[in-house]
């Protein structure tokens, strides 16, 4: 069967998917029409609950028992996959169509070596013997940029980094020269710089082999860098499809426009520059270090030395009243550690000056300090007590730090301030969405009218559109109350939009603190420059 350049490698025609639930069928996908040609990368962009992952499972024919398919076809090189038996699909998966998953630490079997997991694909589909497969595996690993392929084959997953693992997974996906590969958010679980490297690798391999690729992501900016065409999916519907250029310069649908606008654009500043650098900063962190690890009982008895991990290494920085100081860094850089030290959740060495008072440890953090310094956490599910109603959660800080009179009215006002209905006070956290819960957390923080609010990756667990509205809310509150923020994030684009100054951290050290508009100057430290380069900026290429 000839596959001319015009016939798509993967064609989804009018395909629908339902899940049978206790409350009736849930329409996960509705009349999907997509096509990917040879050599093409199609980006599929959607937020959580959009059905993008369900589509991947549908294509691979790996659906849960309660899945129903009311209609449509999925054609791989002309064969309708819906007609295939499980046996036939087993022959197709890994060979004609393969998949790269989101988190390499969970998609690799922790008890088998990397080599075994790579070789088994080769043995299964290409009929190689173990020795042959092993040798070929080594070659493949070299091809994906791993420095010591022979040793890598023998490594266990936990012995290598996230980036290296993902390269192995990519090698497995490309191993049998498939016609089509699905990439399901392959860089989400990786650090910014590693993400960039993996992305580059993917683009390189794709160009070399011409494999038709479906690149699924929630990150529009990322997709714009890699794909030639984009499809936007919302709640099971393909809202809009087109070339990347068209979508970005001329979006047809409102939702698409919303998504594009929600993507942080560092060139588009959201704060004004007028922050007076007071002679006396609001908070001054002086040589603060945090160490983890304590001697176990037996170690103390036997006098063994134990390794202590350094979370923060002599950090010194300051925040001015009303200023937004951003702290960026990859995971393990120590940014959350610092936040926890400043709120007494971590023991630290060094000094913290707040509003003229010296704080050396938890005991010094009195009620006045607590009132003025508040923290908001990353995961809205975990930061609200699931057994307390919203009213109780919000009235507590009022009782502690404010006046406890007429709590109902005050709580209602607080909810309105964060744009939630007053009736939410009677609900439990699990009845609210992620974005709503985070707003409650913000309301809780602002209840005491603090001078400093520490935001510890508060938008990282949220969808892009929700993130945008939460940031908008934060800036509104800041304008109204003049509160200073210590905004911790790994999203460099976002911080460039909202911060006055930015602090860069790496592995427990503070690299540098600069004004936001100077972050991309060539005078920056090496690490900072690498970080800037690694971050995709969608809008930039279209202006």
């Amino acid at each position, binding site marked *: 069967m000839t596959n001319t350049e015009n016939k798509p490698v993967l064609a989804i025609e009018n395909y629908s998917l339902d899940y049978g639930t206790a409350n009736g069928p849930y329409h996960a996908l509705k009349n999907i029409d997509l096509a990917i040609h040879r050599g093409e990368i199609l980006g599929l962009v959607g937020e959580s609950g959009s059905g993008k992952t369900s589509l991947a499972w549908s294509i691979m024919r*790996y659906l849960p028992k309660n899945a129903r398919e009311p209609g449509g076809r999925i054609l791989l090189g002309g064969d309708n996959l819906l007609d295939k038996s499980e046996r036939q699909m087993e022959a197709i*998966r890994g060979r004609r169509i393969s998949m790269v*998953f989101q*988190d390499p630490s969970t*998609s*690799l079997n*922790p*008890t088998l070596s990397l080599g075994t997991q790579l070789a*088994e694909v080769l043995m*299964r589909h290409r009929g190689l013997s173990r020795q042959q497969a092993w040798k070929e595996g080594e070659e493949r690993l070299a091809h994906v940029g791993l420095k010591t392929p022979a040793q890598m084959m023998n490594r266990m997953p936990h012995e290598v980094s996230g980036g290296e693992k993902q390269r192995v997974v990519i090698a497995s996906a490309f191993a049998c020269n498939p016609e089509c590969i699905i990439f399901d958010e392959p860089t989400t679980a990786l650090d910014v710089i590693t993400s960039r490297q993996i992305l580059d690798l993917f683009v390189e391999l794709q160009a070399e082999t011409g494999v038709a690729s479906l690149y699924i992501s929630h990150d529009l900016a990322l997709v714009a860098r890699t794909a030639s065409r984009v499809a936007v999916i919302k709640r099971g519907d393909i809202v809009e499809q087109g070339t990347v250029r068209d979508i970005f310069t001329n979006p047809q649908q409102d939702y698409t426009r919303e998504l594009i606008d929600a993507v942080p654009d560092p060139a588009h500043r959201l704060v004004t520059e007028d922050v007076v650098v007071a002679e006396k900063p609001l908070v001054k962190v002086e040589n603060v270090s945090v160490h983890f690890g304590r001697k176990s009982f037996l170690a103390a008895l036997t006098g063994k030395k134990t390794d202590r991990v350094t979370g923060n290494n002599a950090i010194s920085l300051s925040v001015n009243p009303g200023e937004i100081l951003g702290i960026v860094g990859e995971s393990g850089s120590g940014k959350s550690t610092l936040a926890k030290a400043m709120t007494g959740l971590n023991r630290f060495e060094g000094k913290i000056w707040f509003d003229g008072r010296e704080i050396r440890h938890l005991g010094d953090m009195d009620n006045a300090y607590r009132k003025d310094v508040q923290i908001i956490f990353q995961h809205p599910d975990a930061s609200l007590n699931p057994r307390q109603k919203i009213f109780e959660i919000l009235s507590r800080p009022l009782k502690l730090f404010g006046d406890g009179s007429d709590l109902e009215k005050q709580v209602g006002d607080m909810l309105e301030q964060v744009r939630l209905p007053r009736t939410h006070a009677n609900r439990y956290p699990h009845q609210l969405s992620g974005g709503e819960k985070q707003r409650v957390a913000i309301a809780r923080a602002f209840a005491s009218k603090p001078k400093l609010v520490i935001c510890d990756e508060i938008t990282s667990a949220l969808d892009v559109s929700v993130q945008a509205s939460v940031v908008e809310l934060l800036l509104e509150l800041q304008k109204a109350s003049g509160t200073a923020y210590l905004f911790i994030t790994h999203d460099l684009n976002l911080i460039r939009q909202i911060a006055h100054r930015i602090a860069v951290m790496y592995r427990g050290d503070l690299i540098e603190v600069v004004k936001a508009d100077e972050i991309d100057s060539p005078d920056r430290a090496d690490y900072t420059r690498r970080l800037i380069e690694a971050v995709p900026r969608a809008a930039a290429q279209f202006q």
Partner: protein
Amino acid sequence: MIVYTLLVVSLIVFAITQILPADAAVMMLGENATPEALDALRQTMGLDAPIWQQYATWLWHVVQGDLGTSLRTGQPVGPAMFEALGRSLLLALFSIGLMLVLAIPLGIIAAIRRGKIADMVVSLVSYAGVALPEFVTATIAVLLFADWMKWLPPTGYVPLTDNFLDGISHLVLPVCVISIILIAHVSRMVRSELVDVLHTDYIRAARLKGLSRGHVLRRHALRNALLPTITIVALDVGYLLGGVIVVEEIFAIPGIGRQLIVAIQARDLPAIQAGVLIMAATYSIVNFIADILYAWLDKRIQYD
């Protein structure tokens, strides 16, 4: 770690037995003995020393291998106990063996046929297994197989070295009774572990590489699901030691459980102390070996 455990156990045992109202001297000489005779005996037995000193002396002897003299038989406690332990271990080993042979396949079947009839049957069986205490199962088993059907001898013990077949036939019922609860418990654990493993991302990734169900089960899932089984089995040895007591009593097997019951009923302090110590030590050693085995097999674990 084991040392600390045994120390604590010895302390507990010693403390418990020392609070007994009747003291050893009275037991040996009877209620009508003269106070002088009692005092003299107490002195020889060292019962007039302060408690902590008695404890230290006893501990010192234990460390040297002397577990004391039975108040009941007048013989050294150690040899009798260890011999009895040997028989109990035989019982235990057979039970664990039977359990492994049955529980693991049952658990696996229940996991791969989750929600279907096979799974429900296994679930039912395991629920039933934990519903009855050993003495009930034992009694019913004796009723059924020994009295009614006369397939097996009801009680008693025949050493395997004397007459292998006869010895085995005497062991069948006790082993089955002990195994039932073990099988119920372990098969449930295996099922639960395997179901969890089968839902992981890496199993899904393996299936999406085109590997067959059988291959994924054998080479990926089973090794990860069965590893925790080692820990469960080790913990169950604790239950085993308890069950052994009842079963030995009912089936009249002269194992360590029987010895302990006899000792407790006779208030034979040295024997009680030694017996409990031995049981606790066995449990600790088994768990220790299990931990090492687990760590060796699972290359992921790093002890900090």
